[in-house]
């Protein structure tokens, strides 16, 4: 009993530290984002609470000596890139996982080749890609070379998620559809897709968030037009103002909104799956 208590304390402290490290930066960032402006800097104490830096980010503050964050276009680029990566990566992931449902010759090798995309260090991959692009006179752009590397990076995640989903998928549902005279394409649309939808959703979330804050690959291959993470990094080189923190809070809130949508959609389809599997257990019993 005594040992158990000791263990409990250790685990408790560990968890508390974990939470502090996880949320601490965000809390500090949030507090500092309400610093007085434009004179207040990114450090304690708070001179006076204000929403100046939020107005600054949204370009509705009085003009001041602090230049606006160079993020307007970068944000659009990052969102576009993340969206395209999400679509392509999920599509590829679903199709290749579908291919892996049958055992084909060399499937083991292909599996590791795909997974390699998320194992190889980003800096190496980015550097390599930059060298290759220069060698062949290919312009380095965020929508070209960087986009390709983003897909190489997120595709394995989508692939693994979809593989797990297909592993639990009851193949006889598709077979039942075929035997009713429905061709494979329509069967995929009407039967397979609704069943694998939770996986598609997870794959989309993975791909989007991974691409959105991807740094090393983009740094080397993105060319002169910066994406969000690169643009923010660029501002560190000059002087940091709390407007960066205000922006951080806003994007984090946007991420939470995204996660909430994901959670709601997921809960809906998981509830369906749960009912389904409990029905199955009843059948077996």
């Amino acid at each position: 009993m005594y040992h158990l208590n000791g263990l409990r304390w250790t685990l408790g402290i560990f968890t508390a530290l974990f939470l502090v490290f996880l949320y601490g930066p965000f809390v500090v960032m949030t507090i500092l984002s309400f610093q007085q402006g434009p004179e207040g800097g990114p450090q304690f104490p708070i001179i006076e609470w204000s929403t100046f830096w939020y107005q600054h980010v949204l370009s509705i503050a009085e003009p001041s000596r602090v230049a606006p964050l160079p993020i307007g276009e970068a944000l659009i680029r990052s969102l576009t890139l993340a969206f395209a990566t999400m679509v392509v990566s999920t599509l590829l992931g679903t199709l290749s996982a579908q291919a892996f449902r049958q055992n084909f010759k060399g499937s083991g090798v292909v599996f590791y080749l795909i997974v390699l995309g998320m194992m190889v260090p980003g800096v190496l991959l980015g550097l390599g890609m930059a060298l290759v692009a220069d060698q062949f006179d290919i312009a380095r752009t965020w929508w070209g070379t960087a986009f390709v590397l983003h897909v190489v990076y997120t595709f394995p995640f989508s692939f693994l998620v979809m593989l797990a989903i297909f592993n639990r998928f009851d193949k006889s549902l598709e077979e039942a559809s075929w035997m009713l005279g429905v061709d494979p394409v329509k069967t995929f649309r009407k039967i397979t897709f609704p069943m694998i939808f939770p996986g598609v959703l997870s794959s989309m979330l993975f791909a989007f968030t991974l691409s959105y804050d991807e740094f090393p690959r983009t740094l080397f291959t993105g060319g002169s037009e910066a994406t969000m993470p690169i643009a923010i990094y660029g501002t560190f080189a000059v002087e940091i103002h709390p407007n960066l923190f205000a922006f951080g809070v806003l994007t984090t809130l946007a991420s939470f909104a995204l996660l909430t949508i994901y959670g709601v959609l997921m809960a809906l389809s998981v509830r369906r799956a749960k009912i389904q599997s409990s029905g199955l257990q009843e059948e077996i019993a």
Partner: protein
Amino acid sequence: MSEFDLELVRLSKTYPGGAVAVREFDLQVKQGEFVSFVGPSGCGKTTTLRMIAGLESVTSGHIKIRGEDVTTVPTEKRPTSTIFQNYAIFPHMTVSQNIEFGLKVRNLATNVIDRKVGEILEKLDLSEVASAKEESLSGGQKQRLALARSLVIEPEILLLDEPLGALDANLRKSIQEELKLLQRSLNITFVFVTHAQSEALSLSDRVVVMNAGAVEQISEPLELYTRPQTPFTARFIGSNLIFPGKLQSTAEGNASVHTSTGQFEGIPVFEAGTLSKGADASVVVPSEFVDVTVSSDRQETSSPIGLEGTLIDIDFVGRDAHLSIALKDETPLRLQSDATVMKSRNLVPGEAVDLRWQTNRATVVSGHT
């Protein structure tokens, strides 16, 4: 136009791993026939059914439906429909949507679809759950929905893979009856897979007994029961006494066989071609035809005795009596008999008993196993 609805010609299947699941399966099924595949688990029943449905590729041989070779025709273009063991109900659709699904791809007018769905819901007693989803259906309802979904597209052949396996015993019995009536009234060819021999015997017009991927025997249920052609069938179907021995002579379709339990004379032979003198052969006696009496009650007028032994145990299970008997040479026997008749014999364990049957009820099959 062929006279057969379904023909299997030397149909064989070897799985990529090298497992031979089905070998040289020959079968001809007439329109409206109810055929069962029966055999122990792993003997290739499902594989054969899936090849007929087009869900499994054929290694060699042919499948013909109404004379047309469909060996390479994809599932969705075959006039067959399948009831899966787990029913494979589409969980994201209601009962009606499940049934409509196969009709909607057939270019039918909406009112025709609605009428057909309504009719089949009515026929299979599903009208009340028409807008329910799989999760709220009982086992029996799921089973009927699977049937409705398959029947509404009016297949020429319905394939059923152990469709009653997931149901409890009582429900099983009543659905067996319904299934038989349904098949009669629709006059659709049924190919029914089961590992329960009693189910096959009570439902089918003909039964295919399978063993290790090969057909052992194709017969009508009664014949299968009374005239097994192989020791495997004799063991698998019904409850038979089997005495392995050597064939001594066959004269005019009557065999004489020497076994360790004794000499059997004048036993009808039904597959004379495969039997030769001195070869291994087994005498099979369906236990229903064996009468058991107490030896001390023996009378002058009693018919000749088949075998003598000692009753070890007797159990009454419903309408059946299970007897365990040790023969003179200690060979143990298990016998299933009619409970009422056996009760009237006043059998007591430990007593000497006589076993009798009419000679022509027995049969000879080649081999021992």
